[in-house]
């Protein structure tokens, strides 16, 4: 088998194994709940029979590994169980399916994240490469200090400053990003402008600094000096000699920061009251609605693992040592 295919398959296998373990961790959340949590959710007034019925519905009478497989099989088919909320002591059940809660919001979150990524990725790559090329220039040092400052800002600080200037003092954008399925595309972009801009500011700093470091590292290779001494121009050195070896580090940088976006999205959604998965998850944590927390966590984790997997695969298929084995 060609080493590239072999390595990619190995990496895929590793990704699957990671996913398996991660799903076990998320699943065991429900295992770690104290024994009387049924009472806590249904309320003090709940009758013992109601609590028992609830426990049976969750399948707590079955062994853990069987419940894990039930849960995992369900998750693969898009069934994440039923929410804890909407139940009460009388046994009446108005709870919703977790999937129905997540699905519409997932689309919102993806929309917001992609909008931020579309601006942030090209911007930070360009800035990163420029600062690496003009290292220690005034431009580089100012960008360095500025990004060092912004990576130190909590997301909500950036968000509220933007709100103060663009929504409160000057009413250019709305401070609440309330969208629903009927909002048309242009309106949607307008309403998500501030949250997207916040996310962009937060990750550009990280991504740009890492790109700069990766490029500087690359430019220090002896073969770059060799290229200079063979008369190659600056552009030629970047495009022909540095870039073919830069895909792996750049892919890693992008994946790392998109994964970071996943985390940033939670806070930003709460600030702007944006109906996304992040806000749903935070609400679920506050009310200890475990099935919803599990569902959201699973989605975030899968995204995260997938992004890292893609970055690694890009690194593998652009590695000349694997592409052209001995």
């Amino acid at each position: 088998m060609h080493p590239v295919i072999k390595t990619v398959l190995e990496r895929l296998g590793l990704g699957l194994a990671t996913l398996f373990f991660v799903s076990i961790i998320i699943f065991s959340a429900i295992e770690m709940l104290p024994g009387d949590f049924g009472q806590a959710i249904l309320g003090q007034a709940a009758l013992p029979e109601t609590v028992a019925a609830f426990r049976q519905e969750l399948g707590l009478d079955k062994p853990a590994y069987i419940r894990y497989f039930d849960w995992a099989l369900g998750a693969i088919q898009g069934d994440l169980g039923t929410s804890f909320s909407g139940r009460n002591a009388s046994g009446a059940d108005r709870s919703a399916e977790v999937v129905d809660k997540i699905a519409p919001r997932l689309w919102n979150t993806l929309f917001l994240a992609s909008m931020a990524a579309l601006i942030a990725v090209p911007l930070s790559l360009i800035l990163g490469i420029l600062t690496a090329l003009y290292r220690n220039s005034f431009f580089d040092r100012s960008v360095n200090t500025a990004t060092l400052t912004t990576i130190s800002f909590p997301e909500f600080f950036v968000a509220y400053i933007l709100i103060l200037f663009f929504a409160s003092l000057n009413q250019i954008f709305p401070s609440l990003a309330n969208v629903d399925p009927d909002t048309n595309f242009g309106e949607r972009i307008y309403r998500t402008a501030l949250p997207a801009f916040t996310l962009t500011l937060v990750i550009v700093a990280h991504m740009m600094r890492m790109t700069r470091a990766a490029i500087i590292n690359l430019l220090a290779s002896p073969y770059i000096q060799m290229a200079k001494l063979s008369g190659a121009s600056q552009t030629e050195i970047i495009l022909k000699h540095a870039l073919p070896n830069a895909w792996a580090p750049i892919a890693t940088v992008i994946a790392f920061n998109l994964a970071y976006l996943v985390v940033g999205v939670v806070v930003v959604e709460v600030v702007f009251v944006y109906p996304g998965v992040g806000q749903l998850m935070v609400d679920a944590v506050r009310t200890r609605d475990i099935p919803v927390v599990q569902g959201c966590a699973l989605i975030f984790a899968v995204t995260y693992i997938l992004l890292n997997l893609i970055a690694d695969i890009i690194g593998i298929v652009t590695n000349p040592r694997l592409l052209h084995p001995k």
Partner: protein
Amino acid sequence: MNKDTNTYSAAGEVGSVLESRSTFTRLKIELNKAPLTAKFGIFIIIVFVGLAIFAPLIAPYGEAEVFPEPYAPWSANHIFGTDQIGRDIFSRLIFGARNTVGVAFATTILAFLIGGALGLAAAINRSYLDLFLSRTVDVLMAIPQLIFALVLLSIFGSTVINLIIIIAVLDSTRVFRLTRAVSLNVVVMDYVEVAKLRGENISWVMRKEILPNILPPLIAEFGLRFCFVFLSIAALSFLGVGIQPPTADWGSMVRENASLIQFAQYDLKAAMTPLLPAAAIALLTVAVNFVVDWFLHKTSGIKDEK
């Protein structure tokens, strides 16, 4: 440097060597040469630590002291006004330094104790222990930290102790990786082999040969981890699942007063209130990052191109 080769002596041998100086003079020279950003950072850190230690002496009112007027405007009595139930914002900011910074500091220390010890053990042991720990850390790091923290908090509930333990354990994964990596670089050094060949026990090798040499990168990492932990805890508190009221904490203070920002057109000062604790968080993080950046630049010995 010109010397007569006929009178070669080992003691007089010259090479490109460092001048012999005491640690104190070195430190003084370094501090004088430090860039403005680093000096600023050190100053801010000292101020914040002072505030945290002497909070009860500096703050005009108590941490949870309630006054009759909620949302009072900025005035001589209440420099930054009062919050939604009438507590003095300025006093809470000062107590917040103690609580927020204190919790973040304790968490970082705990993360380093766990991650550092396990990382060192894995680097020296290099067998099943290393394999087991490294794989476990890989899996733990496959879930975004904030998400993982949210899951755990939903199970165990949001108390300060839970918060410290959960964040510390999650963050120790990164400390583990770094400690293991830098220790591995040191473990392969000949001087460690010399100690082993002499028959020194593991604890001596760890304390005398490895630890002093991995300390500089670990100190820098401590600064970075502190920033990260500090921001994570602030984010969780802001989301309402971190440090709980009535404890004064910067993250939750932002959240409690957030609605004031809508009135910027009418009362800009009041609208700034939620930004104050957020700015305090940002200021300390910037300060630590500036110092770490300078420290890294010093110790890495990287010679940037001109």
